[in-house]
């Protein structure tokens, strides 16, 4: 049985904000299906008593004084903007007419 359907690929692509062509959807479904088939080998392992690893080094929350420090200048932060107006990033309209 297929691990992933074309319909699921379309759903995941929407979640990932990724437009796919018809051909890409076709190819992606086949390739993800084969990769997920390989990944199924993890089911051979009983992990019911195993804690997950999210980081390999001990992590502590790092605190610092809430002090004003020099940071990126506004012009520098805007220098790479694809489109801008004054000191704002400009984007296409969000709300339909």
């Amino acid at each position, binding site marked *: 049985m297929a691990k992933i359907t074309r319909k699921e690929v379309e759903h995941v692509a929407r979640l990932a904000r990724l437009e796919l062509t018809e051909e890409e959807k076709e190819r992606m479904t086949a390739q993800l299906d084969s990769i997920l088939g390989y990944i199924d080998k993890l089911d051979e392992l009983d992990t019911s008593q195993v804690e997950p*690893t999210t980081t390999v080094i001990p992590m502590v929350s790092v605190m610092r004084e809430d002090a004003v420090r020099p940071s990126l200048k506004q012009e520098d932060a805007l220098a790479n903007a694809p489109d801008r107006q004054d000191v704002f990033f400009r984007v296409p309209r969000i709300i339909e007419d």
Partner: protein
Amino acid sequence: MELHRLTIHELRDLIQKGEVSPVRVVQDFLIRIGQMEDQIQAFNTLTPRMAVGFAKKFEEMQGRREKLPPLAGVPLAIKDVICTKGVATTCSSRILENYVPPFSATVMARLNAAGALMLGKTNMDEFAMGSSTENSAFKKTRNPWNLGCVPGGSSGGSAAAVAADMCAGALGSDTGGSIRQPGGFCGIAALKPTYGRVSRYGLVAFASSLDQIGPLAKDVRDAAILLKVIAGHDPLDSTSANVPVPDYEAALTGEIKGLRVGIPSEYSIPGMDPEVESAIHQAIRVLEGLGAAQENVSLPHTDYAVATYYLVATAEASSNLERYDGVKYGYRTPRAEHLIDMYMKTRREGFGPEVKRRIMLGTYALSAGYYDAYYLKALKVRTLIRQDFTEAFKRCDVIVTPTSPTPAFKFGEKMDDPLQMYLSDIFTISGNLAGVPGISVNCGFTKSGLPIGLQVIGKPFDEETILRVAHAYEQATPWHRERPRL
């Protein structure tokens, strides 16, 4: 004298003694790049004027007999995933093609303070996703030992530039083998430090729990020198560990008598190239000849590492790459009617096929209904893989494996089969999942003249021991002095 043939420590010694001008050094490398770049295609961007400018400053200091910083005038190549203020940082992706960072990575600040110069930014697999550098949106980097073969990846440009003497050394990044595997394919010394050893501030993120910056160099001493400069805690990266940085060069004693070398039985796999297998056996005999003791160890979950990696790495990547939305920097589609449409088209037009595939796999593994079955499962298996190393290191000081199951492969050979490409990282991936350091050094050549990589894996934060072993091996063998005929 052909200065470009020299190592970092040789150049450093000549410059420090005032015997060679840093300007001459840089110019020699620039000429070499001019001769080689058409064939090798290692660089995305060259920064000759900047390099010569800094070299002149050091030349003047030399003239005034002032004390120079330790790596003054040593020219390096930097993987195009490391942010460099005022110099394009593209990740070999269309989506960042015109991105010029307003800040520099911590590793760049540290190299700069040590006096090292940047010659340019090197080609890579797009966003460091790949094992051959074929996923670059811009060019195909060729392996200096055989121009019909890939240099490995994702740090293929850095590895090829070092092997072809187009720089004295380089930086790369390693998420599943991206420093060590191209290092092995190109016959150089290439080290992935312990997770947390080097600051990731300014490294464009791929998989944040796995990524680590490290050196690619002509010999082990050079790798030690570069690591010493870039390692250490950084307040700008809270995952950088507050652990003292030893003098790595001082660890290169040549003495490994009594050291226990672990050989994992699981690393003899079907599909392993017989020439690789025999070179590794010979390398182990060399280590024994130097007085090391062989210990059989077991890493029983090795067979699950690739599957685990491709869930953990893609899940983290899908989240990290959400930022490429065409709003604040990078490419934006000119063809969008409204905001969501802009996101969708920008990402479709800006990302290449492998990046899309990994974003899809990662998004799927994190999505409702699949999180437990895939992502959480992978995190648990990651624990088992870590425990394998903890157990094995109770019985040995280092673990020795091939860097890759095969030498460099031909262009196009694995491009249509993502899974086969992923499996070329089978011996390096576990090191990232466990967070342990590893170094690849050249341990011989195939009959067709391709280098073979030997990997030495160490305990967390014990880069000293793997450097010592790799250096002792290097001193006992001729391989690191070989250069490709170009």
